[in-house]
């Protein structure tokens, strides 16, 4: 056991930062910015430390902290880290500072809005750090009680970030977002209450053990097992989101301010997938297996409809939002396919490993590329606002449409380059990071459920279609619309936002082993122990 509670530090340093910001009245916007950024970078620094001490070959969680907490509910304060968590902690560490940089204008109240809290950089910073800490908590908690605490608490800052700094439809979108998500998690809560009744524990590892050896199915008899499974599934399905529970997503992403949208798509959507892998799959192997044929259909629905819906969009943010649905559905597709194939005498081993590696990589890569895409759209949005002499932040920001731009490539080549990189990464161009994940997923799913893989290719095609449309309409052709007048190149802050993300896309595309090395042993062990009770 590590003498220093590293994981608690990871989780609570951002919260400490939030508290500091909340308490320090009257500090200048510059100090606020610096503090916010510093605290958000703590995650990256600490995860570097974790990376250094992490042993990829150990299959059990590391840096474990476990203390008794609520005796009556047998709750322990239990944090632990394995390859999967580490990957997502890293991702959070990367995305949050980038998102903050993308929100630089929210952190510097250039506009005299005396009656608006959006003029309070301290509030923005605190909320963001709260959000970051909650997300980290979700990735590190190993006991339902505080896992759920972080899971739900993450909604609060997100709600206010969207509502107060979002677009004109933001209040409605924020409301919808939170109510949908809580609706899902309420039933998840009932499910876990039932699990506690049956097993007397809320610890994920213990529950997974009971799930694997079939005890759970015995204890939850008479249909209760399935009901509990559906409840928990619903919680995750809304969060990811799984088609058709996705309806909250496009409006939310579209209305959210750029930084929040980056975090939502980059980190928060991963919380759902993470939950499926960490909780749903290990604890409910049999119900998931039984439901897999249907769930695969739903995941395919997300892949295909997500992509086709994106084609129909002219609003760029909505387009990227739908593409998120599409990309995350790949992850779910792979997971459900693995569950489907379990015990079906399919030649599984390598396919399962491939599917899992693909899923994990896809989570990380999509986090990078989607966040980068939102950042680019955000830049385009500020340019449009500038051209129309509107405020460049707050609710007055206009939505950006495909038809607003043209020939950005000539006006702002660096922006075009970085955006193009993100687009092609998202598209899955070989050599960039997106390719590896999607390739592995397809490889795995082909081995496990060929029909699904075949249908999913439709989604690939459609993705290519709308991303290329985006690329072509906005960056190529004659300069038109907003671009027709003066169009500024990326400023240093914007560059600082995009450049690290772009660099990582390339690095991870060329050396995926850097990441897979973290979780390969874990995945191999999952693949090796793939049986139903």
């Amino acid at each position, binding site marked *: 056991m590590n003498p220093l509670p590293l994981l608690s530090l990871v989780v609570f340093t951002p919260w400490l930062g939030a508290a500091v910001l909340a308490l320090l009245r009257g500090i200048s916007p510059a100090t606020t910015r610096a503090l916010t950024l510093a605290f958000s970078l703590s995650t990256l620094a600490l995860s570097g430390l974790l990376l250094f001490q992490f042993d990829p070959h150990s299959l059990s969680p590391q840096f474990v902290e476990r203390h008794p907490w609520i*005796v009556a509910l047998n709750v322990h304060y239990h944090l632990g880290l394995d390859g999967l968590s580490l990957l997502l902690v890293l991702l959070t560490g990367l995305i949050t500072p980038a998102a903050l940089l993308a929100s630089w204008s929210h952190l510097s109240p250039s506009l005299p809005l*005396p*009656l608006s809290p959006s003029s309070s950089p301290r509030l923005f910073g605190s909320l963001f750090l709260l959000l970051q800490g909650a997300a980290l908590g979700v990735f590190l908690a190993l006991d339902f009680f505080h896992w759920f605490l972080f899971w739900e*608490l993450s909604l609060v800052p997100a709600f206010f970030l969207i509502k107060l700094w979002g677009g004109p439809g933001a209040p409605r979108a924020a409301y919808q977002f*939170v109510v949908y998500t809580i609706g899902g998690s*309420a039933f998840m*809560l009932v499910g*876990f*209450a039932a699990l506690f009744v049956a097993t007397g524990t809320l610890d994920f590892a213990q529950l997974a053990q009971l799930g694997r050896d079939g005890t759970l199915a015995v204890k939850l008899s008479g249909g209760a097992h399935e*009901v509990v499974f559906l409840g928990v599934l619903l919680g995750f399905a809304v969060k990811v989101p799984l088609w058709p529970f996705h309806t909250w997503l496009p409006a939310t992403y579209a209305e959210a301010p750029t930084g929040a949208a980056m975090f939502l798509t980059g980190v928060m959507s991963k919380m759902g997938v993470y939950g499926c892998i960490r909780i749903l799959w290990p604890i409910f192997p049999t119900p998931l297996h039984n439901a897999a044929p249907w769930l695969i259909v739903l995941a395919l629905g997300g892949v295909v409809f997500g992509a086709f819906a994106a084609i129909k969009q002219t609003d760029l943010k909505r387009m990227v939002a739908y593409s998120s649905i599409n990309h995350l559905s790949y992850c779910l597709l792979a997971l459900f396919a693995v569950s489907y194939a379990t015990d079906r005498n399919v030649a599984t081993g390598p396919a399962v490993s491939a599917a899992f590696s693909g899923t994990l990589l896809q989570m990380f890569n999509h986090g990078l590329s989607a966040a980068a895409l939102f950042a680019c759209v955000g830049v385009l949005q500020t340019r449009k606002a500038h051209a129309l002499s509107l405020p460049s932040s707050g609710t007055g920001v206009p939505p950006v449409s495909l038809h607003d731009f043209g020939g950005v490539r000539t006006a702002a080549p660096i922006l075009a380059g970085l955006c193009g990189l993100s687009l092609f990464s998202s598209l899955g161009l070989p050599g960039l990071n997106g390719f590896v994940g999607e390739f592995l997923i397809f490889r795995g799913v082909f081995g496990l459920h060929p029909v699904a893989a075949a249908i999913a290719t439709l989604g690939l095609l459609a993705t290519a279609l709308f991303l290329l449309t985006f690329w072509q309409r906005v960056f190529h052709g004659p300069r038109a619309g907003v671009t027709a007048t003066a169009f500024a190149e990326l400023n240093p802050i914007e560059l600082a936002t995009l450049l690290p993300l772009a660099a990582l896309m390339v690095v991870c595309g060329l050396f995926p082993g850097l990441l897979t090395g973290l979780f390969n042993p874990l995945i191999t062990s999952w693949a090796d122990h793939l049986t139903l009770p």
Partner: protein
Amino acid sequence: MNALPLTIYVSFVGALLALAAGTRSHGAARWIALLTALTSFALTLLAASSFAPSPGLQTIIDLPWIAELGIRYHLGADGISLTLLVLTGLAATVGVLFSWNIEHRVGEFFALYLTLIGGVFGVFLSADAFTMFVFYEIAIVPKYFLIANWGSPATREHAAMKLVLYSFAGSALVLAGLLWANAAAVAQGSVSSFSLNDLAAAATHFSRGEQIGLFALVFTGFAVLAGMFPFHTWAPTGHVAAPTAASMLLAGVVMKLGAYGCLRVAMPLFPVGLAFWQPTIAALAIIGIFYAGFIALVQDDFKFVIGYSSVSHMGFVLLGLAAANATAVAGAVLQMFSHGVIAGLLFAVVGRMVYERTHTRQLADLRQLPLHRLLPFAALTFVLAGLASMGMPGFSGFPAELTILVGVWKTSPAWALFAGGGILVAAAFTLRAIQVSFFGSTPLSRVAASASESTHAGSLHHYEPITLAEKVGTALLLAATVYIGLKPDVLLDWITPALQSPLMQAALKGGSL
């Protein structure tokens, strides 16, 4: 422990002193009230610090009172009472702080207020049904005058009367039940007694019909005060019309009296009746959760939203009681505490911080005001209280709801699923209230624009700043809800052993479907 009855006497004496002082100096009456409430609170905390949980009521005083009927002045406490006593002490103290600005008939206000508090303390300490009933009724009359005198002018007289008549009708049911039980016990040859233990012992020999009838009378009587659907209508109107401190006490503590009576009297005494009525109660509780929740979702009056939310939340308490197993009941008690604190906070914000500054409770008016900017402290408090009310983890509502869900699932998974839906409804109406009241849907930039155009907007809404009393009160309640949210064990360690007593075990056994 042994100092707990002092809470009752201190409150009554404080009431008299406040009444006497009020004729000369308002300030003196206020300080007397505050000191009285603080003393009671300190006494409860002191008792809590030395409390050794054990099954059954720990007798503190047991004196013969009315020998002719075998009535004893019997006070005792167990973990359940202690939980609610601490809540009462806390709510009383905070209530005084939030009534600091009362200027009209101050002495009488605090006298009635402290009488109410004393009655509540008495109910939570009683181990004899008669003693409990006496305190229960003592708590009824002050409510009328608190609302009718200091409530919001438009509806206060009607609301006060409605509230008191409902309470009194409920207590009439209880009285009928107790007298019937006593008569039936005597008819069987038992010595006349109103001690809960003796009544329970005698009730084991009652016929099934008697048990069912008695349970219906006593439970319904108490449940009226707990806001059980369809007897809840007094609650929203009463809460809305009441002055802030009274709303806080009504929703925070007085509704708990009802639930406490159900748990302490109806369930252990008549377990056979409980078994019979269990599904009905659960159904009513669930209907209450949804019905009140949906009404709260469409209310135009800010305070009505909170009023109905109380009914909805008390539905969870009743559902926990109806599930009648140790976990669910422990959760219900925890929820009583939690809701007591949270309802106090919500009413404090709506009634004191917002209404007394803006003089409107209409959401349509409030959404025009950039309240989060004008009253940031109130906004922050309301957001936190709203989150706690939604059952957000980290606040006391969450462990309570989780424990109730766990317990309810043990009895009936279907009820638990309904309760899950109820959580969603609670989230929806709370969020709407937060959204509309403090963060009105008027886009901020437009507000800002109009502010710059019409110069008055910035200067017009200069509300009196939040006072120190309000801040201290808010801090106390928030600290309580967060502390219990993170350490529910503190209370569960008291409550759980209390449920091991023979009486409670009988109730829980009767309730195992």
